[in-house]
């Protein structure tokens, strides 16, 4: 059954917190995250005619976000890396009420994810954090599903090797 056309303005407004979260995790930097969200928003509005009703608006927007960021880091050939700090650990502790061992483990893992190569990091963020399927992630990253799977597996392998898992 065909879905009714979505209202781009409403859908984008609703999605902004998720875009912000994704941008924050991709960039590991407040200013970069702000720029990325702004540029995503502009690009979405510019390209709204290209969105096909019935497809996932969420993954379409994330495709744009990731594409902008990919171009950005290509132009810089570097990216900042320090999202996980003491504050992060405290936040994780407060909310999840994990035990001390889990807390340390979690911190190690988040740090490890930040240190991953960009392609692997994007794959694990999309699947394990943002909750996209392999198929959706492949579309967002513009790569075959098999490549998503191998990047994800390599990312997890590295996490397991470098943490106490």
């Amino acid at each position, binding site marked *: 059954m065909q879905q009714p056309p979505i209202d781009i303005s409403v859908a984008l407004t609703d999605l902004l917190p998720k875009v912000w979260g994704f941008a924050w995790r991709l960039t590991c930097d407040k200013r970069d995250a702000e*720029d990325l969200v702004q540029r995503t928003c502009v690009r979405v*509005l510019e390209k709204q005619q290209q969105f096909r009703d019935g497809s996932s608006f969420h993954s379409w927007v994330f495709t744009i976000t990731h594409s902008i960021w990919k*171009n950005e880091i290509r132009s810089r050939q570097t990216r900042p890396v320090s999202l996980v700090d003491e504050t992060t650990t405290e936040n994780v502790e407060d909310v999840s009420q994990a035990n001390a061992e889990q807390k340390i483990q979690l911190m190690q*893992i988040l740090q490890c994810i930040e240190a991953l190569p960009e392609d692997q990091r994007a794959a694990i963020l999309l699947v*394990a954090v943002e909750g996209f399927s392999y198929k959706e992630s492949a579309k967002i990253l513009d790569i075959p599903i098999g490549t998503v799977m191998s990047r994800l597996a390599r990312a997890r392998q590295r996490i397991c090797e470098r943490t106490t898992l």
Partner: protein
Amino acid sequence: MNDEELLIHAWIDGELAPEKALQAAMLAAAKPELQLLSEQLLQLQKLNLAEAYQQSTPEMPTALQASLQKTILQNEGAKSEPSEEPVQTEAAAANRVATFAKVAAVVLSIGLGYGLANLPPAEHESALATWSDTVLTYQHLYLRETVTDTATSAQQATMLIENNGLTQALVSIIGKDVSAISPLNEKGYNFSRAQILGYKNSKLLQMVYLADEGLPLAFCVMPLSGEDTLAKISTNSAKGVNASYWRHAGFAYVLVGSLPGDEIDVLAQSLQRTQGSQG
């Protein structure tokens, strides 16, 4: 990473149809290394990375949120009343113009970096004019607060300039201090923020200046190969935003803001004169 391991990953991620999932479960039961892998993946899953990230992600800055919502609303208004002039509320105008500088820089990088790089010299000027038209159609983003919220120090900006090989482009204009651009300072504009934007292999420096009141003024610079066919300053404007742009010694420059076009032009001429005096 072999196919069996990939199958285990897909199984734990819930990506497999029941038949394949059963196959994966049997593999894990039969092979100790796959059993270990599945246990590790389950343990990782149990730690709930999504929740950990959720809790460690700060709230979106309110200034950014407000700016984006206004942008979206403006888009909505433009769609519903395409034939009418937009209502010139102070907030809408502020949003539109203040955010222009950032987008202008992005578009500049796209236009100059790729659209113009391979054109014959004779076509550079008209292409730059087209680019300028494109720049001026953008009406998005950036409140004054967004700039102030993300201010950088002059020292950080200087490092940014040096690290991105733009010292040569700016030394005649700003010397070693981005906060001391006399023509802008005399107009009441003080340095607020610098950042590198880019598109593919082009880097673009955007420096933003704020006066005590009003909207930001952005001065953008990027390397540009080819002859300096636009040594003379060109201007463009749309909906209250004015831009003056020129080329000099392998770089492109643009000054954009909401000041009257002749004032922007005078400022641009002052900046360009400092280059001429050393070129």
